[in-house]
């Protein structure tokens, strides 16, 4: 580069050198500052993005639960108001017919009436199990008790239920979510775990509620929680998080499954 005359006066030369020197140091300082600032922005941005995603997931889950509850409520009402009513009518009709028949035929009709009566009872229990109103009126502990009776009556699983401490309401929505988690766990034990026994423990403390669920089924490796088959279990965690609770799931192949939900933010 050839430059003998760059048009700057002699007096200003020293100042230019000093200024540009300061500028050079300034650039290095600026770059360091920028990198730190950028890193902070990245972290802040990531945090905001995670929060947005978590809020979206919560909203999605909330909507799914609302839709599920509406469906359950509809099915429950249909069972209660329609199917059981029809079955009751059939039972009455059979009773009327039975009176006019011979003894052996009457016995068969009565047998059928008993079966229908049993079905009506089962359907009523199922209707109660699905209905939100049942939890509203009876509370969580009583609703679980009814559910346990229903399952035990079916003979599919031996369920044990215990309550510790003085029961109190944690709010209808919270109780409903806990109850649905319990139903999901029962369903898993029946469908996938081939469990024979199931323990439910509800512990009420001063400002803490623990719901412990335990089965003696096949169990699974902890890694299963992260794959597709573990979506039901993850759903339990998400549901618990939705009401401010924390779900911990422990299992190992051949050692059953233990689920513990702790809730302490309802007060």
């Amino acid at each position: 580069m050839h430059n003998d005359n760059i048009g700057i006066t002699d007096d200003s030369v020293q100042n230019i050198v000093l200024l540009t020197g300061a500028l050079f140091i300034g650039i290095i300082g600026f770059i360091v500052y920028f990198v730190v600032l950028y890193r902070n922005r990245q972290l802040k941005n990531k945090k905001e993005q995670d929060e947005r995603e978590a809020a979206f997931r919560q909203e999605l889950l909330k909507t799914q639960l609302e839709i599920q509850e509406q469906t359950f409520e509809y099915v429950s009402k249909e069972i209660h108001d329609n199917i059981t009513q029809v079955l009751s009518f059939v039972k009455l009709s059979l009773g009327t017919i039975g009176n006019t028949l011979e003894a052996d035929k009457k016995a068969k009709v009565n047998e059928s009436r008993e079966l229908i009566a049993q079905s009506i009872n089962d359907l009523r229990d199922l209707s109660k199990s699905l209905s939100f109103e049942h939890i509203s009126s009876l509370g969580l502990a009583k609703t679980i008790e009814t559910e346990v009776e229903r399952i035990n009556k079916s003979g599919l699983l031996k369920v044990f239920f215990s309550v510790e401490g003085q029961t109190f309401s944690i709010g209808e929505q919270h109780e409903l979510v806990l109850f649905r988690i319990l139903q999901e766990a029962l369903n898993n034990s029946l469908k996938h775990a081939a469990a024979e026994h199931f323990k439910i423990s509800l512990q009420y403390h001063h400002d803490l509620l623990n719901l412990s669920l335990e089965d003696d089924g096949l169990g699974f490796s902890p890694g299963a929680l992260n794959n597709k088959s573990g979506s039901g279990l993850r759903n339990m965690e998400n549901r618990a998080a939705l009401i401010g609770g924390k779900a911990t799931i422990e299992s190992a192949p051949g050692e059953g499954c233990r689920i513990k939900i702790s809730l302490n933010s309802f007060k």
Partner: protein
Amino acid sequence: MINNISLILSILVCLTGIVRFRKLTMPFKLLVALQIIDLLLTTVINKLVVSIYHTNALISHIQALNSYIFYSLIYYFLFKNTYIKKFLLFSIIPITAFAFINAISIEPYNNTFPIYILMPTEILLVIYSLLLFRQMLLYPVQVNIVIQSVFWYNIAILFFSAIMFMNLGLMNYYSQHNLFKQFIVYFWYSAIIIFNLLLGIAILTDRKEEIAVNAQ
């Protein structure tokens, strides 16, 4: 010695750019093109010009204008703001017109260094660089800054444009006080080496796929 190192590094940056050309995004393809043109200007064409005019002032005139046009176009692709993009494109017209007027009448291309072109263009490049840093802060991507080509490119421009002022000041000071000029030569080539290194890192770290992922 140092000029040879600088030349080898320039060739290496060009070769890296050529090898990675298909993987590069549009602004960095332009950067590679500019590096190749610069290399030709400072080597083959420079010798030709010096043999005719006995000075390389013409090369400096061409380089000053050429660099501004290419860097503006690169920034055009890097900026998101429409007003800045428009300004970048339109600024090329008056700068080009002024460069021609300057080369013909104010600072003749056959014997004078284009200081009146370098001063405003380098100031503009510093401003573009700072604006791009601002944009980076406004829209941070979840990629480590060290592997972001834009970051390295922007540092290179900020560094070189600012150093240009320092170099001009030092050159004037040394020539007017009849001091040891070898220092300024080393200083200038060192600056070019750092500049080329930064551009080389920018070319090495640029990837089309990453931009696509970040845009999602």
